[in-house]
């Protein structure tokens, strides 16, 4: 039903709606204009600036008179302008409706600031952009604060690493002094005991031979420890010349296993699963050292009767050598640290040796262009070391 009465309020309402809308638009423009913390402006489809607000003036340095009608590419660094990035950004916004970007922008005075930019495409009914709304925030201070934070964190980490290295060195010195001084004590005491017994006329052959055997064992132990120390100082100085030739990993491993078998409590303590031959090019004595150290490690960290399996698998481009034991496993220490010098577990002060074996092994393997990795056995019992050596030497 239409009546004059009913029509009047209607027409009044639409008039007031229109004026409300207009007032709303004005208010919105004033609002946008008043925003100080964000540069909010419109670009035409060609990239020319259509509107400008106070935030844009504050952040970018241009007044509305200076910038309206200019191309927005002047906000970008010369490199980005040359790379055509400004118009590409508009292209992406047109494709995706909205595009967010972070990067350096240039102020009127040529100084740069770190900006967070959101470009929104305004499209007509057919989906063609008639303008782009661009909202830019100056994140220079936040970025500086973040960088400061990152620097602080990096410094903290570096300090922690330095302290850890110092701690590791102290631990090493304590282990080294214990390991070196004990055989020296045995030699000194052993020789003095023999001399004293002789002085008293109590030195028979059996006593002399037993005493000399103990002295010999102690000096052999000292020799091994000193070689380990010399190796580590050479490795640290990065002087490890390789004498490269053909090496049959299977024959080499058999030699090492034979050496260990003499000292093993049971003849079947070490099992070798391998083909007849697996020849690579490398330094035989150094690779011998790698296998020796891994086997020594496997035997040493076993509390009960040792049980070690060595598997050798040839591949077209190299050979894989796996040493698996049933020892205490690797739970007590991070795997990355294990291969570092002086990086043995904290609970291993009672295990003989300087704790350099794995570090020396890794250095030799890497000098051969290979890899070494450590893991735990599936059932959680024992550890497993995998060495991969390439067939040919990348650095002859």
């Amino acid at each position: 039903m239409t009546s004059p009465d009913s029509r009047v309020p209607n027409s009044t309402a639409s008039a007031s709606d229109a004026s409300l809308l207009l007032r709303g638009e004005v208010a919105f423009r004033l609002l946008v204009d008043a925003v100080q913390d964000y540069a909010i402006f419109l670009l035409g489809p060609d990239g020319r600036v259509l509107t400008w607000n106070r935030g844009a003036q504050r952040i970018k340095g241009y007044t509305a008179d200076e910038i309206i009608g200019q191309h927005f590419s002047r906000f970008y660094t010369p490199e980005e302008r040359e790379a055509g990035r400004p118009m590409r950004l508009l292209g992406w916004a047109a494709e995706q409706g909205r595009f967010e970007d972070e990067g350096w922008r240039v102020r009127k005075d040529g100084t740069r600031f770190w900006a967070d930019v959101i470009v929104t495409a305004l499209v007509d009914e057919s989906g063609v952009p008639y303008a782009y709304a661009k909202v830019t925030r100056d994140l220079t201070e936040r970025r500086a604060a973040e960088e400061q934070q990152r620097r602080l964190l990096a410094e903290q980490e570096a300090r922690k690493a330095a302290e850890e290295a110092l701690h590791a060195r102290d631990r090493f010195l304590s282990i080294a002094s214990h390991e070196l001084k004990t055989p020296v004590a045995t030699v000194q005491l052993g020789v003095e005991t023999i001399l004293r017994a002789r002085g008293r006329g109590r030195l028979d052959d059996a006593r002399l031979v037993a005493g000399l055997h103990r002295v010999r064992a102690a000096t052999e132990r000292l020799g091994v420890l000193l070689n380990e120390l010399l190796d580590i100082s050479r490795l640290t100085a990065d002087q490890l010349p390789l004498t490269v030739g053909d090496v049959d990993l299977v024959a080499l491993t058999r030699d090492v296993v034979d050496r260990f078998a003499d000292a093993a409590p049971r003849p079947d303590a070490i099992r070798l699963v391998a083909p007849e031959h697996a020849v690579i090019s490398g330094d035989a004595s150094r690779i011998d050292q790698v296998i020796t150290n891994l086997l020594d490690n496997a035997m040493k960290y076993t509390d009960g009767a040792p049980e070690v399996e060595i598997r050798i698998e040839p591949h077209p481009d190299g050979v894989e050598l796996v040493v698996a034991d049933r020892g205490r496993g690797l739970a007590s220490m991070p795997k990355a640290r294990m291969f570092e010098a002086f990086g043995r577990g904290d609970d291993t002060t009672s295990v003989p040796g300087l704790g350099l074996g794995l570090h020396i092994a890794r250095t030799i393997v890497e000098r051969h262009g290979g890899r070494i990795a450590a893991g735990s056995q599936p059932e959680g019992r024992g550890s497993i070391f995998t060495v991969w050596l390439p067939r040919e030497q990348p650095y002859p």
Partner: protein
Amino acid sequence: MAGRRVLVVEDDDGLRETLVEVLRDEGHEVRAAQDGAIALGTLEEWDADLILLDVMMPRMDAFAFRSAQRARGAAMDAKVIVLSAAPEIETAADQLGADRWLPKPFRLTDVLDSVDELLDGGVGVDSPSARGR
């Protein structure tokens, strides 16, 4: 002097055997243990007058051994000489309630003099060769 009972607790085979041999030569009754746990077992049936004690040992080190020994009241009157290569041997000896300490490597006379003095009841007698307290 009359033979007394000496327990040698040391994990290094060569050093332990040499100490046992030289102390037996001096007329002492000597028992040996490779670690603290074995030493505890020995003291259950055999009372020592003196214990030569290494600090770092597998399974049970000197600290664990001493607290277990005290808890059981085993060989409570035994004198203790600590043997160690550790730089902190003096602190360790103090914590272990030891009568003397000998830093490795030591001379034969250091060991024999320390043993003699402690077993003669000469506690606190400071001799230059026995570098203890």
